[in-house]
């Protein structure tokens, strides 16, 4: 851990809190004021060494974190956490329907990967996608409104939970494993168009046994596609634990001839360093790499799964108390004086407010108009007629 833990500064915090409480507006608060200059601008943290497969070196075991980035990561993870919990609430109120796969517990994956790649890089994932939709640039407002099926949703209410898209973000995909060849295809386009972009292609421990993933591994390796295959191993594919589904649970080695990394998916800095390392390897034209993120989801597979029939409440509680990604970052920040407790509390308050406002929008925005029903079947196409439920129902479709 880090040096420069200053107990004097801690004392100052306590004094300032006491004084703030009793000081009136007119009293100068010179002695008690905390300025940002009091905080550590930058600190270096140890991260767990990644297990490697077919690699001579590994991602660094030290990660430099600036105060600015720390606050940004904290805030982003809190947004995802609160957004997912709000979705849980709305689902139970039957305002969200159908499928809803939540990712609370896995925040360090989405935020860490985004920190390790550039906005001009590409990302594709499966159906547990709300966090990634946010990190790739869609507002909470538009995400929640899509979940509630309103016209203000990012897919105008046409897609729902599993079909949200953004610039350089290819969803949100409902068919397990299908997104992996798609991601390799995006990587092919990156190489073809001579950019130095990479594609982060995500899948879960359940999908990891899909044949099409091995087909994608083969072609990505053969053609040296800049594809980072990322397995988000949260230990359970719906109700099936990894031991029950996979002859080999070393998902980072499953690429065989493709080098691999096993990463602590609960530590955002470990994810960030590993992603950067992987992206650099791809950008250098060395071909694909497989990254396994060991993570955990607090919720069940989806909202219709309580998540306790195949695992114990004790297990869930243990992960929450020992490995929560947001707590891990918060503890690091506080222990190294990168932020104050109040500051983080203030962020929490702001985040809650943002989520509340987004939820308010998502529950009051009107549903899409019926005139929209048949639109967007095709892209850049002349208007066409679509058969409705009855032979006389000739509906209009524009693209």
């Amino acid at each position, binding site marked *: 851990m880090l040096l420069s833990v200053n107990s004097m500064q801690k004392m100052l915090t306590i004094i300032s809190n006491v004084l703030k409480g009793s000081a009136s507006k007119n009293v100068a608060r010179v002695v008690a004021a905390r300025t940002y200059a009091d905080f550590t601008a930058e600190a270096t943290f140890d991260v767990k060494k990644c297990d490697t497969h077919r690699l001579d070196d590994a991602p660094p075991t030290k990660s430099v974190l600036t105060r600015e980035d720390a606050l940004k990561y904290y805030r982003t993870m809190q947004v995802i956490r609160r957004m997912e919990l709000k979705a849980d609430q709305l689902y139970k109120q039957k305002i969200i329907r159908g499928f809803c796969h939540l990712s609370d517990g896995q925040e360090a994956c989405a935020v860490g990967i985004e920190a390790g790649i550039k906005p001009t890089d590409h990302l594709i994932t499966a159906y547990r996608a709300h966090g990634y939709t946010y990190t790739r640039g869609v507002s909470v407002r538009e995400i929640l409104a899509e979940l509630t099926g309103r016209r203000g949703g990012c897919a105008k209410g046409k*897609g729902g939970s599993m079909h949200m898209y*953004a610039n350089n973000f290819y969803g949100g995909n409902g068919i397990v494993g299908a997104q992996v060849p*798609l991601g390799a295809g*995006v990587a092919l386009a990156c190489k073809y168009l001579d950019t130095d972009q990479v594609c982060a292609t995500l899948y879960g421990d359940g999908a990891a046994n899909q044949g099409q993933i091995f087909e994608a591994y083969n*072609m990505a390796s053969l053609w040296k596609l800049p594809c980072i295959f990322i397995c988000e191993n949260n230990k359970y594919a719906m109700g099936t634990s990894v031991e029950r589904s996979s002859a080999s649970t070393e998902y980072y080695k499953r690429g065989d001839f493709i080098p691999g990394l096993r990463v602590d998916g609960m530590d955002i800095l470990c994810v960030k360093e590993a992603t950067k390392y992987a992206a650099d390897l791809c950008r250098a034209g060395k071909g694909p790499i497989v990254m396994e993120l060991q993570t955990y989801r607090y919720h069940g597979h989806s909202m219709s799964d309580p998540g306790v029939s195949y695992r114990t409440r004790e297990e869930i509680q243990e992960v929450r108390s020992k490995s929560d990604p947001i707590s891990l970052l918060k503890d690091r920040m506080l222990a190294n004086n990168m932020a104050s407790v109040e500051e983080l509390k203030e962020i929490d308050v702001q985040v809650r407010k943002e989520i509340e406002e987004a939820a308010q929008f998502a529950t009051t925005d009107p549903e899409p108009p019926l005139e929209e029903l048949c639109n967007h079947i095709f892209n850049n*196409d002349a208007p066409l007629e679509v058969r409705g439920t009855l032979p006389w129902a000739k509906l209009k479709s524009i693209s």
Partner: protein
Amino acid sequence: MALLKSCVRSGRNVFAVILRREFHKTAPALVQVTVRDALTQAMDEELERDERVFLLGEEVAQYDGAYKVSRGLWKKYGDKRIIDTPITEMGFAGIAVGSAMAGLRPICEFMTFNFSMQAIDQIINSAAKTSYMSAGLQSVPIVFRGPNGHSAGVAAQHSQCFAAWYGHCPGLKVLSPWSAEDAKGLLKAAIRDDNPVVFLENELLYGVAFEVSEEAQSKDFVVPIGKAKVERQGTRITLVSHSRYVGHCLDAAAVLAKEGIECEVINLRSIRPLDMETIESSVAKTNHLVTVEGGWPQFGVGAEICARIMEGPAFNYLDAPVIRVTGVDIPMPYAKILEDNSVPQIKDIIFSVKKSLNI
């Protein structure tokens, strides 16, 4: 001369036709082009026109194509644009779709559409539905092409017609060319289209030569998607077909013409969207309809045409029920005599016409 033309069209005798390109001399306006060469030309012209277009599939590059449809393309465009894939349809179809999402314009070849079943999830769920699911944010400009339907002696697993399966799905455009002009113009249109197109060729037609007009020889010649073509004007009865069986209909029409029965033959060209307007106008004129297809009868192309005729204005013009001539409802057998009797024959079409006209 008429007999020669009919032999050329039905492909029973495959003439080795050399493509003449003597534009600098006083060239004949029409040239003979095989369907295969028309497809090669279409891809060549579109590869040249747009750098984002590329071809991938099994044996498309160094082998010049399993059926030689991509002959010469790898030599001209190289590894980057003509890509040989391993035998992994689900994987390479998915890669093709992903590349289309990220800005390229892939042509994904299936050695035959029977193998597309391995990849059908990528075609339907990843390609066809995406524009709708994303409310227009994400386009998928891709062409899936390859031979469809039965060939000669390749038996059950290699002989299925997929027109009805793909024609069923919103979000896809499905084309089924017959002549060389169809092949070239429709493939060019498909490649230029910003949406997923399933392009159903026919192996038995590859070697057949057709006359191609001067207009159709131009590099900008495209055939509009969704429009059928009246190949032969007639007054007594309408025959509607797609792909290889258009030729059978024309042959049947030639025979019937001798008996004074003038058939109107419509070449669908597009399975989806289906040009009902052309069919309805024709039925309004002739009052009789026979559909001909190679695929199985149940839930097939002919079945759809019947349903739509019944739902539309043309129903009142019918003097007899619509007759569907289809493949036999069995997996394709191997022995020649069995195979020949598993698919529509010219005599079946003639019989249906006479039945419809009550002759």
